[in-house]
């Protein structure tokens, strides 16, 4: 019974739904505020994403005539749920709930599931704008997948080099390795991989310079063109939560091993680190860069970012 | 003697493949397939051939350690493979006739609606 209660607590409160949503909304609000300040604007209040969500929930859901109703409505819910499960698998520094039941590759794919649910929702809406949007979303996905994979392999080799198998995919093993040997980020051969991962984060989330799939000015929000009411709100919430989860994943992969011994304090540390990562990877590029073209995103990720990750991988492979 | 066999079968196979690769006429391609078949059949028969051996027809009582005969198994294999080759040739020719009816040509480089 206590087990069940704990599971419910994990799923619903920490590190599940409630925690993710709160931190995600705060991060998103902070990002908007920071960007506004950098562009010399006042910016919306910190909780603006939450207000947006609430307002969406009060609106009517319009299902277009060409839409496939059930999928159109199920996609946002599925995407959100799949994302929350990722949060359960990602260790918060040393505190991990279910991190032994899924590894890095699984998390890579679970994040894909989130993207796919968005794509399926867009496809189900039947709108041509959504069609263009999902095509771009997929291109973005192909773009960041290669560097992401290379980063995962580099981390896996670094943490697993001393194990009998020589490699590992297990997040828990990676966190444990960092606890013993210091964080990944402080091993110089991993710095290019960390940089690559920092580039992967905004594209995975679809933040401004890489938001080719949602480009409001060109294709009218692309994948979200037909969404209105609560489903749209849920998609926006998913977007916020994804910001937190990618930051947490970065912390687990590169900044693990810093443990205070208390779960609550660990969570706080992760939140602070997430704010820093958000600022570095999302707010600054958002404020200073114009949106990339579709083919530029692809080229950038498969050459520059993948190159960075590859350097790390080769260095690690050489045992440096 | 047996060396000539191997040489000829190598020659036949190579010629057949060359024919299949270079000839644009569908019938010539079929001929090439046939040539490859014959070459391989010759190879199998030659494998079992012993110079000076007798035909492998014996009673169990006649069979002694000194009896010297041609290995019968490759011959059985060859028969099977000849039958299969005949089927393949028949099938190829059928398809060529049908193709000619549908496409109006026997040139292989004009029969390429499935590509890319």
């Amino acid at each position, binding site marked *: 019974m206590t087990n069940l209660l704990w599971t419910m607590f994990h799923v619903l409160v920490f590190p599940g739904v409630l925690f993710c949503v709160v931190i995600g909304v705060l991060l998103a609000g902070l990002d908007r505020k920071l960007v506004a300040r950098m562009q010399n604007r006042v910016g919306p209040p910190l909780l603006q994403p939450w207000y947006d969500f609430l307002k969406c929930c009060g609106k009517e859901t319009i299902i277009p*005539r*060409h839409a496939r109703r059930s999928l159109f409505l199920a996609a946002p819910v599925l995407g959100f749920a799949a994302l929350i499960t990722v949060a359960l698998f990602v260790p918060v520094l040393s505190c991990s709930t279910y991190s032994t039941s899924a590894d890095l590759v699984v998390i890579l794919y679970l994040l894909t599931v989130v993207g796919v649910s968005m794509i399926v929702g867009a496809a189900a809406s039947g709108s041509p704008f959504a069609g263009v949007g999902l095509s771009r979303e997929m291109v973005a996905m192909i773009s960041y997948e290669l560097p992401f994979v290379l980063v995962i392999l580099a981390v896996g080799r670094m943490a697993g080099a001393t194990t009998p198998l020589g490699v590992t995919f297990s997040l828990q093993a990676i966190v444990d390795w960092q606890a013993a040997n210091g964080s990944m980020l402080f091993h110089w051969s991993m710095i290019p991989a960390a940089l690559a991962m920092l580039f992967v984060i905004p594209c995975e989330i679809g933040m401004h310079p890489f938001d080719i799939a949602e480009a409001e000015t060109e294709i009218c929000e692309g994948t979200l063109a037909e969404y209105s009411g609560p489903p749209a709100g849920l998609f926006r919430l998913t977007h916020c939560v994804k910001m937190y989860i990618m930051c947490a994943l970065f912390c687990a992969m590169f900044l693990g091993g810093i443990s205070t011994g208390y779960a609550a304090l660990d969570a706080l540390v992760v939140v602070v680190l997430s704010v820093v990562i958000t600022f570095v990877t999302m707010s600054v590029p958002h404020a200073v860069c114009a949106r990339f073209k579709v083919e530029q995103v692809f080229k950038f990720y498969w050459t520059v970012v993948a190159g960075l990750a590859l350097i790390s991988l080769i260095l690690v492979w050489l045992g440096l | 003697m047996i060396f000539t066999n191997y040489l000829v079968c190598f020659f036949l196979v190579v010629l057949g493949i060359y024919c299949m690769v270079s000839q644009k006429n569908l019938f010539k391609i079929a001929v090439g397939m046939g040539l490859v078949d014959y070459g391989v059949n010759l190879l199998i028969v030659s494998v079992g051939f012993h110079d000076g051996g007798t035909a492998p027809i014996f009673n169990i009582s006649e069979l002694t350690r000194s009896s010297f005969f041609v290995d019968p198994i490759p011959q059985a294999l060859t028969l099977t493979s000849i039958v299969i080759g005949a089927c393949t040739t028949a*099938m190829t020719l059928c*398809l060529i006739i049908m193709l000619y009816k549908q496409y109006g040509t026997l040139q292989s480089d004009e*029969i390429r609606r499935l590509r890319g």
Partner: protein
Amino acid sequence: MYDFMYHFPVLAIMVLFLGAFIASLVGRRNAVIRNAVVLIAMVTSLVLILSLVKPILLEGQTITYWLSNWEPVGDWAIGISLEVDALSLFFALIVVVAVFVSGVYSFFYMDRDDSLVNYYTLFSMLSGSVLGLVLSGDLFNMFVMIEIMTFTAVALTAFRNTYEGALEGAFKYLVVGSLGSTSVLIGIALIYSQMHTLNLAQLAAMLPGYDSPVTIIAFAFLFVGFGSKAFLFPFHPLAADAHAVAPASISLMISGVLTKCGVYGIIRLAYTVYQNVDVNVMNALKSVCNPMNANFVQYFITGVGVVTMFICVTMAFNQHNFKRLLAFHSISQVGYVITVIGLGSALGLSAGLFHAMNHTIFKGLLFLTAGAVQHATGSLDLDELGGLSKKMPGTCALFLIGAASISGLPPFNGFASKWMIYQAAFQKAGETGNFFFVVVCVAALITSVLTLASFIKVAQSVFFGQLNPKFAKTREVSLGMRIPMWILAILCVVTGLFPDKVQQWLLAPATSAAMNAAGYIDAAMGQGYAASFSIPSFQPQSIFLSGAWQPVMWLLLLVSVTLAVCIVALLGSDDKAPAISETNTDTPADPKYESFFSGEASVYSQVGGSDLFWGFKHNWRHYFSFMHNWHSGVVNDYTLYGAAAIAVALVLCVIFL
């Protein structure tokens, strides 16, 4: 095991050939009797094979059956034998299930074709020959079965001979396929010339002691031959041509069953027969080594797999035909299988077998959905179709399950096996410290996301977006066609959710059977035969995983989170619940239900087919145009590629031996 079970393998094969014979005899007049005969034959062989699961897979026994009781005399196996160990039975299971599903589907799918008696006769022969191949214990018997298989598959490809390109596809398949068969036959001749036997068990015993380059060259020929039956690079254009034009049920057979024969042949040869042969003479110091440790063969097989998997997945981006696209993906997935088979580890082989099985399941499902679309609309053109999800919701759901499986999305079976594949490749890299295997792992992961992209393209082009007015009268296909698809879809989910059970019951026995050369030899030739040739006895390799994945756990979490979200949504939305009824969508008056069109009046506008993924294709345009020209569609060119493959294999043999 009961004694009468020894007859089950041969009966399972014979009943299918008998079915072919009787169907052609009585079926010309009466369609019901014909269908009944075929159904009985399929079900009988399914039951016979299933009844062997317990003794062979679970208890680890091996059945050796000598046809007409020609048992080995004086240690020479002259007679033809069937030898069924766990590996054979594993593939036989795949075959009989696929045959059953495909057969049932055909009853409904082929209802508009005539001269169906020919179809069912050929279909039964095809099934029987494939089953015969995987159960055979004799190399020449395998060749005969391959020939029957190719022959019937060609005939079935051309079955709808009025269909655009059907004859052309069949002709190419026949010509280039005959090159592959010839390659097998040459390999057999070379082996016979050295060993004077073609019994697999006896070969496995005698080959290691017989140090001759001829047997290695024979291996090269056999590898190319079986590779051509699995449509590996550079034989893959054949598959694309044949799949695209064959009836969907036959596409299932070609992709799900025929390619498995090639895979089975390669596994049987490389793991069992050539297991103890020291392939790499330069490393002669490793005298008693697993030949799959001999690096050269490993690199070669893995390399071929990677090239196949990558080229085919990129080729799929260029396609406009639904089934042709699926065909390229089919070969791409076989590339995964071959890649991990080349790794030579127990984990790799398990992953390969798992993926081979899953490939049959999800690829079969996808081909059947393509067939359903073709049956309902009469078209397979991705640029023309669209919006069918409203007309065919069942088929759409099935397609999405299949697409998620092949793209490797959790929790479907494609992910379970691909996950093992990444583990196997990366572990090999870790063990050997060789960067080549890292590249393999990266290629596998990237291929997976490209697969996803291309199935998003299909989903958007066929099932989503707007309905082409041309297909406004489309109706969902009959229940008889959907039930076989649902069987496959359920298998997709079940094997994806319980990979550990699959591993325990199917993969582990099959893997150890493939690696247990001594056991295979002894089962056929009598106890102690392997030891007399100093074949080392089998040391089971244990499988370690370098990661973790518990699909059931994830699914429970997902369901609980979804429920939580739904409950919150329902509680919070008592009066704000979107009150949309389907009737609204039928009244065209209200413009707010139109698709958003920047303020203009909404018109039919479908984004699909080749419109998608511009940013990606633009960057690779040179590669794509090169590949487009390379797959020229001329049969001479394809023959040249095949001949070149044989030549390359031979040259590599000569260089490395």
